């Protein structure tokens, strides 16, 4: 494929010329990640420049069509872009729920106006999105949600409460499941978009066991949402949400992969690894992690050609998140008492312990492991009554 070789050369050359040296350093903490949005403070001029340059080329969403802010690349081209970025250690120019979750749903369910309007802003990192799914009392059980949008002709008036809204305090807009028909449990929910600065929206961060607050409680008190801000059909928001959850599960599941050059045992070794039984556990883990990374690769290959079972992301999400939890249990054990430090000189703000605690949410957010196993039982194994 000579064309792809030329393409690789061109991409490589562009990256060399345009990626600032500071953006080729490893990401050290969350401040190094560019999340975009109205409230985002760039950490450096280089971070801002890198986003702008990539957005101008469509490289923040390379597989999206050009009219929507993408570069219109096919799967092979995207892979080359990714490989070339890895080669020079370039940081991702933009991380965003808009790209990972809402974007794919809009591409599938949005109107042409919505696509042009929202996708371009997402691609340029101008809107940061949060997700309004869970409610108190309905964690895994999304269809029981209560937040209600009353029909007022050209708009809805939304009242209710969401929980586990990721970074709601930093988000500009929300994509939100709202009940629009109280008589139909499954087909009475719509998928609405609205501005978090709308009157009546209140946000309260939730303090987590990790000491951070990545999630919020979000309250809606007579929030007005114009009718054109619905995605998909009225009362069929569940279809959009399920499609989007699939993407979320793929994303979260990515966390479990093993890096073949950097097995957990090799990491632990750097701090000394004298317990033979801990070493044994690490080796057993590395087998699982390396095998899982082959699964991840296989899944990406299969999905490109439509060979993957549509429920496969649930399996990957389950296995990947459980693996990641185990990884951090073992890293804590390998770190010993030093990893217990929460607040001390030299513990980098207790980062090991906080990360460990953070991973416990992996198997809860985006569908619990139990729900994933239910889905596998039903949709893949076709077990009775599942």
């Amino acid at each position, binding site marked *: 494929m000579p064309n792809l070789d030329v393409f690789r050369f061109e991409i490589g050359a562009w990256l060399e010329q345009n990626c600032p040296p500071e953006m080729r350093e490893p990401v050290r903490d969350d401040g190094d990640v560019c999340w975009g949005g109205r409230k985002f403070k760039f950490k450096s001029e280089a971070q801002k420049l890198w986003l702008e340059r990539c957005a101008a080329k469509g490289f923040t969403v390379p597989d999206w069509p050009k009219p929507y802010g993408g570069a219109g690349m096919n799967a092979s081209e995207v892979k080359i872009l990714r490989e070339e970025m890895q080669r020079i250690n370039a940081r991702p120019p933009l991380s965003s729920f808009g790209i990972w979750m809402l974007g794919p749903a809009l591409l599938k369910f949005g109107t042409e106006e919505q696509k042009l309007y929202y996708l371009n802003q997402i691609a340029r990192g101008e809107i940061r999105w949060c997700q309004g799914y*869970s409610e108190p*009392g*309905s*964690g*895994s*059980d999304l269809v*029981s949600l209560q937040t209600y949008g009353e029909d007022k002709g050209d708009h809805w008036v939304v009242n209710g409460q969401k*929980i*586990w809204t990721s970074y709601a305090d930093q988000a500009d807009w929300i994509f939100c499941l709202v009940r629009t028909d109280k008589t139909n449990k499954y087909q009475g929910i719509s998928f609405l978009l609205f501005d978090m600065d709308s009157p009546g929206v209140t946000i309260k961060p*939730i*303090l*987590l*066991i990790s*000491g951070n607050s990545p999630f919020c409680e979000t309250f809606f008190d007579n929030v007005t949402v114009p009718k054109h801000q619905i995605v998909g059909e009225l009362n069929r928001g569940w279809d959009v949400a399920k499609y989007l959850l699939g993407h979320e599960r793929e994303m979260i599941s990515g966390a479990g992969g093993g890096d073949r050059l950097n097995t957990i045992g090799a990491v632990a070794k750097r*701090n*000394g690894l*004298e*317990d*033979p*039984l*801990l070493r044994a*556990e690490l080796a057993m883990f590395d087998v699982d992690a390396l095998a899982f990374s082959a699964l991840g690769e296989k899944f990406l290959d299969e999905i490109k050609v439509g060979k993957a079972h549509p429920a496969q992301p649930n399996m990957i999400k389950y296995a990947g998140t459980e693996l990641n*939890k185990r990884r951090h*249990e073992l890293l*804590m*054990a390998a*770190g*010993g*008492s*030093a*990893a*217990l*430090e*929460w*607040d*001390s*000189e030299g*513990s980098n703000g*207790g980062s090991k*312990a906080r990360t*460990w*605690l953070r991973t*416990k*949410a992996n*198997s*809860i957010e985006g569908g*619990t*492991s*139990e729900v994933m*196993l239910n889905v596998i039982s039903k949709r893949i194994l076709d077990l009775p009554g599942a």
Partner: protein
Amino acid sequence: MALYHTEDQAMLADTARQFMGEEGAIAKQLRHWRDKQSMDGFGRVLWKQFAELGFTGILVSEADGGLGMGHVEAGIVLEEIGRNLTPSPFLTSSVMAATAIGAGNDELRGRYLPGLLAGDSVFAMAIDEGPKHRPERIATRAERAGNGFRLAGSKTFVVYGGSADMLVVAARTAGADGDQDGITLFAVPKDSAGLSQDPIRLVDSSKATHVKLDGVQVYDDAVIGEVDAGRALLNRVLNAGRIGAAAESVGVADGAFDMTTTYLKQRKQFGKLIGEFQALQHRAAHLYSELEIARASVIKAQQLLDATACGKPSQYADLMVSVAKAKVGKVASLAVREGVQMHAGIGMTDEYDIGLYMKRDRALAEFMGDMYYHAERVAQFSGY
């Protein structure tokens, strides 16, 4: 000796359970001192109450004014401490340091035990020297100097070191790092010149320090037990700390399990109580079984230690202490992980207590050797 509590022990358990459930409760102690960012990390008033109830004297001989009880009784108190996540220097002072000091001469015991018994003093243990527990190798040196010794080295994970009046330091007076012989225990007052401590808050909000011993001069009266022959005493102190930590972990696991089964009976999802879901039932039942096994291993080890307390060391007791610490390490970790997962979202919030159990479990798992360390010892005791 039957593997259940005697009537006296059952009475002590009732007292401890009631006291800790009221005075030592999570909101009253752990959260209170944590949110205050307290320097001690525990309550001095509560510590006095421990003394008033006699808890501080459980492992102190009656001749020295204590209760002369054993590890079963200390474990009863520790289990309630674990269940309520009550921060206190009980394990390090009243279990480990008391075991060490109890082996000292009359003068040393007279110097330290009254303060301990009264709940006025706090003692800390300076044993570990790296991130993992490895007391077979002690590099901190104590060299003869003047009328005593000069100590040099560094110690890690010294729990409540910052609040302690005196630190029990394991140091090498002869031989090389890995030698069995040549170990001596020292009682080093907190304000000794050359002793410095870096304060740390741990994941469970307890406090610890890194200790530097930079030519600390102590006199002969600081020696606990015999010079060069402290390994046996150190092992007794370690056994006390290990089975104590295991007993506390049983309480932690039990507390987490109780919270979780209660939640299973309250929380509804998909129109059912989540405790009705058979997959969760089986996981809970499995966890229950594991907890019972862990609990049995702890009381077995406690009784074996008590049977040999002042006599010759018993390898069977050593073996069962490691079995108990390893087994509890494994099971308590399962209990808190299942606890958080079954609580799901709210389990991740600081507002709910289940996450606090997970944090405390992690610190206890590491304290005095984790399951990998102790399972390795089981293999070695068994000759493989």
